[in-house]
């Protein structure tokens, strides 16, 4: 009985906060747009009893999903989001790994402080941090002023409102999510393995690729998923730092919802995004489970 209660809690949580909202979104995605409050039809009318329920279900259809497949905009937006998410995940890995490595190699008494420094940015609102990047990257911004002053460049760099700015924003924002799992994998690494490798004639580089890298793999995978999954649906960073030609599914969704007032199509876009995300999420879960089994 106790066991049942213990399991029921997370499942109820999932049911209430994931499944129910998802079903609502799914229902809206099968409806039609209308000039009303809320702006879609049919509305479930329970006062009509079973008949109301039947007409309600017979009015639902997959029209909006068909519509999505007829306009290339949506595919382009999904692909472009995937590309931006993949590139920024790789960039975050390149920046995050050395930092995590350095932290794991730092003297033991420094590590809590270093860990603190990684988490520290979270104390400031995410929005404010992204906004301050606008101040840094704009043509009259800090970065350009300094570079111009030093004579490195003659004309201001156009970084703001480009994809580069989006990459910078995503890498900066999600860096801690990459560093922390890699750090926790590296910290557990048994250093005597490295000593043994070097004793047996490995160079330090070889020892890194043969021992450190494979043993931190779980951390890398976890970090990559933690960056990749939110980056795909990212809305705030591309809309603040990106240019008008930065096509991302988060922005398309916003347009559908706000500019077109078309909640049904917006919901259809969201349902497909979720289906796309389910694959990496399932892979991530598997990886976690394997790791747990290996440790257990």
């Amino acid at each position, binding site marked *: 009985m106790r066991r049942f209660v213990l399991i029921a809690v997370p499942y109820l949580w999932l049911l209430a906060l994931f499944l129910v909202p998802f079903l609502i979104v799914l229902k809206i995605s099968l409806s039609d747009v209308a000039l009303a409050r809320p702006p879609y039809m049919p509305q479930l009318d329970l006062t009509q009893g079973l008949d109301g329920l039947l007409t309600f279900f017979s009015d639902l259809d997959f029209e909006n999903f068909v519509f999505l497949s007829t306009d*290339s905009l949506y595919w382009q*937006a999904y692909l472009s989001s995937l590309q931006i998410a993949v590139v920024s995940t790789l960039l975050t890995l390149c920046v995050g790994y050395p930092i995590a490595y350095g932290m794991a190699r730092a003297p033991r008494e420094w590590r809590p402080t270093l860990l603190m420094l990684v988490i520290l940015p979270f104390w400031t609102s995410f929005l404010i941090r992204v906004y301050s990047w606008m101040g840094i990257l704009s043509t*009259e911004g800090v970065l350009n002023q300094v570079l111009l002053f030093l004579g490195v460049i003659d004309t201001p760099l156009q970084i703001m409102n480009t994809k580069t700015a989006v990459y910078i924003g995503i890498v900066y924002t999600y860096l801690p999510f990459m560093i922390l799992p890699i750090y926790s994998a590296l910290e557990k690494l048994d250093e005597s393995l490295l000593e043994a490798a070097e004793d047996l004639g490995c160079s330090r580089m070889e020892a890194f690729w043969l021992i450190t890298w494979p043993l931190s793999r779980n951390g890398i995978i976890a970090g990559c998923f933690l960056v990749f999954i939110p980056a795909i649906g990212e809305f705030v960073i591309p809309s603040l730092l990106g240019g*008008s030609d930065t096509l991302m599914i988060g922005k398309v969704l916003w*347009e559908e919802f706000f*500019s*077109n007032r*078309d909640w049904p199509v917006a919901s259809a876009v969201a349902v497909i995004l979720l289906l796309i995300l389910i694959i990496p999420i399932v892979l991530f879960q598997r990886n976690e489970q394997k790791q747990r089994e290996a440790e257990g």
Partner: protein
Amino acid sequence: MKTPLLSFTATLALLATAAQAQEVRVYNWSDYIDESLLEKFESETGIDLIYDVFDSNEVLETKMLAGSSGYDVVVPTGSFLQRQIMAGAFQKLDKSKLPNLENMWDVIEERTAQYDPDNEYSVNYMWGTTGIGVNVNKVKEVLGEDAPIDSLDLIFDPANMEKLAACGVYFLDAPVEVIPAVLKYIGEDPDSKDPEVIAKTEPVLMAVRPYISKFHSSEYINALANGDICVAFGWSGDVLQARDRAAEADNGVEVAYNAPKEGALMWFDQMAIPVDAPNPDAAHTFLNFIMDPENMAAASNYVYYANGNEASQEFLNEDVIEDTAIYPDAETLENLYTFTPYDQRLNRDVTRLWTKVKSGA
């Protein structure tokens, strides 16, 4: 289990304040009021004022259509107001609670009645034009002394835009502002609802889109004032605020606003009360407070937009009432046009066109 406890105490706190004092929640455009008026309202009426801001009609509309926004007063633009009235989002005003209605200006009321017949649901807050803001020196540097800063040629002629691209051009991220202007530029009816006519705007916009650095509906105020950009297609008062900020900062940036000589879009931001407003009484009190001539004048003096309140005109600063960029002369007024909403189908086509213009996809 902290959250339920927290929200429980929060609810208690809310209930407690509700019992003590009335509260009115206002949702208005960003940078759109003299904030001292908010304090004045609280001290005069004893009603707590909660003031939130937005920067796009679309965001407001979504909240209105979703319902239960919690706001008592909102400020949509005319064409959006009209659609939201049709969707049943607003309640009729109780004019007996609005004695200051007598101060309103019939010239404006006649025009707003095309969105809200008999002005049953709304009162005018501000009105203005959509036009061209420039950093005078930079534009002249690029295009020469006779740069067409008062003409749509400046922003829709690719030859001009190509040269301006280097110093930065922002457009409003609002198809209902830009597309009528393009129609005017190519000599069509700006309020056209014919899909084929509207489709003619696409090549014009596609030709200049490579030179537009950003589509955004509020950032251009700061960007113009800082000298980050040299041209913005934006709202009159916003550009004039940029002019003022630049003058205050004394950074050598000189900003000017012109309503295009070809004709400019005239818009009206209307105060209305959502149908499910928690406190409609306080909402009426707020509307009546705003329609007080001195208060309305204070708001206009601060935001550089004209208002629909005739009695307020004697309290306006000279640099507001005498600036034809704010209160156009009779001749310009003649040249202004208005815009009514698209239906759902056309709206989708227009948004799709807009996405194409913005992203190239």
